């Protein structure tokens, strides 16, 4: 049951907690409003983690399936965004593991930054920032995979060391170490670039 179009649009204005509560009650329209609201962030994170456009969309879809099933167990509905991103993190890591198990598929054909080419950048004020962002992408791509994962889960998903440790199945101390290594390398590269 989706209600009137006016009510549908109204859902775009209400806070996450309310949508999550409705979705837990079985309101598919509220769940879809949540998916639309956080979809771009989920997709962006999955792309950075998997490095593949197609895998990223699979990850978003799997995340939403899992979220719908588990939503009534979510203790703090206001925290639904972080909860969705943690699922995105786990599902992305699953995809990377699966891909590694199929060595012949390891060359990703739809790599995230491969086709970016000339970007639709603002020619003036954003040019410098835009190119610094491009430089950061290149530096990230050169990091060891485990370090890159820690960095993305921290900076994109704002996860704690403990949460990242759970997602990656390593210790919080390893997360702290890898994150530091990643940042030091990236900061050095970017300082040279300045």
């Amino acid at each position: 049951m989706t209600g009137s179009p006016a009510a549908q649009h109204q859902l775009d204005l209400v806070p996450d907690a309310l949508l999550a509560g409705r979705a837990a009650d079985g309101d598919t329209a509220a769940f879809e409003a949540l998916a639309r609201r956080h979809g771009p962030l989920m997709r962006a994170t999955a792309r950075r983690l998997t490095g593949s456009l197609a895998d990223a969309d699979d990850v978003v879809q799997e995340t939403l399936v899992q979220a719908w099933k588990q939503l009534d167990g979510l203790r703090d509905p206001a925290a639904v965004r972080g909860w969705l991103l943690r699922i995105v993190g786990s599902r992305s890591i699953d995809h990377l593991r699966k891909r590694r198990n199929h060595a012949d598929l390891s060359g990703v054909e739809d790599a995230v930054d491969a086709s970016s080419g000339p970007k639709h950048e603002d020619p003036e004020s954003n040019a410098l920032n835009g190119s610094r962002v491009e430089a950061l992408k290149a530096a990230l791509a050169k990091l060891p995979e485990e370090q890159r994962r820690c960095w993305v889960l921290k900076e994109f998903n704002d996860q704690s060391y403990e949460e990242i440790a759970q997602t990656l199945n390593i210790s919080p101390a390893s997360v702290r170490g890898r994150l530091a290594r990643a940042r030091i390398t990236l900061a050095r590269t970017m300082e040279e670039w300045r």
Partner: protein
Amino acid sequence: MNTTSDTLECGHSLAELSTYLDTGQIADPVHLETCPECQAGLASLRRLSVLGSELLSSDVADAGSGNDDWMQSILDNLRLELRPGRSIPLHSGNAQDNLWETEGSISALIRSVADALPGTAAGKCRLHGDVTTPGAGITVDVEIAVVYGHPMEERAATLRRELAEALALHTELAIDAIDITVTDVLESPATTEPGTPPSLQTPPDPADSPTTEEQP
């Protein structure tokens, strides 16, 4: 792990500063405040963090809008299972027939009544009591969000009356009470970001004055 190259001349390491950025904790806070080496390292890590936010914004922009086709096609693939909840028996004219309605259909009814009020949206709702036993006393709990400027008590009274009517019409539940909790006061759409298309705004009130909107 070789950390020698990350050790600053003052003896502290960039790794310690990285942890400090996340946790706010460091062994020697007094040193940190006065050491130019540590301050320079911290500034460099903070610049990286700002740049990381810019990368995130750029990636989110590249991901497209949640209202675009890619999300619609993902949503179309989901085929979300319904959550029927408990089965509620309905009186049937014929003893051979069993008629039921689901708890989920009643929640949907409650939401649609609340959503139909201008500037109001339903949140969670709960039916307390044994709905599977005909005639058992039931308390309805509804959370709502109301757009700023709508008088709340009047809104709750109207909603309570309309819910009572709708539940009496569409169900056989013996409703003892309808409890309404306003969990959120929403910003009026007019004061949200200027780019909000008119279609996202709440249904227009016939009159601007909130005191007259309930008039016939």
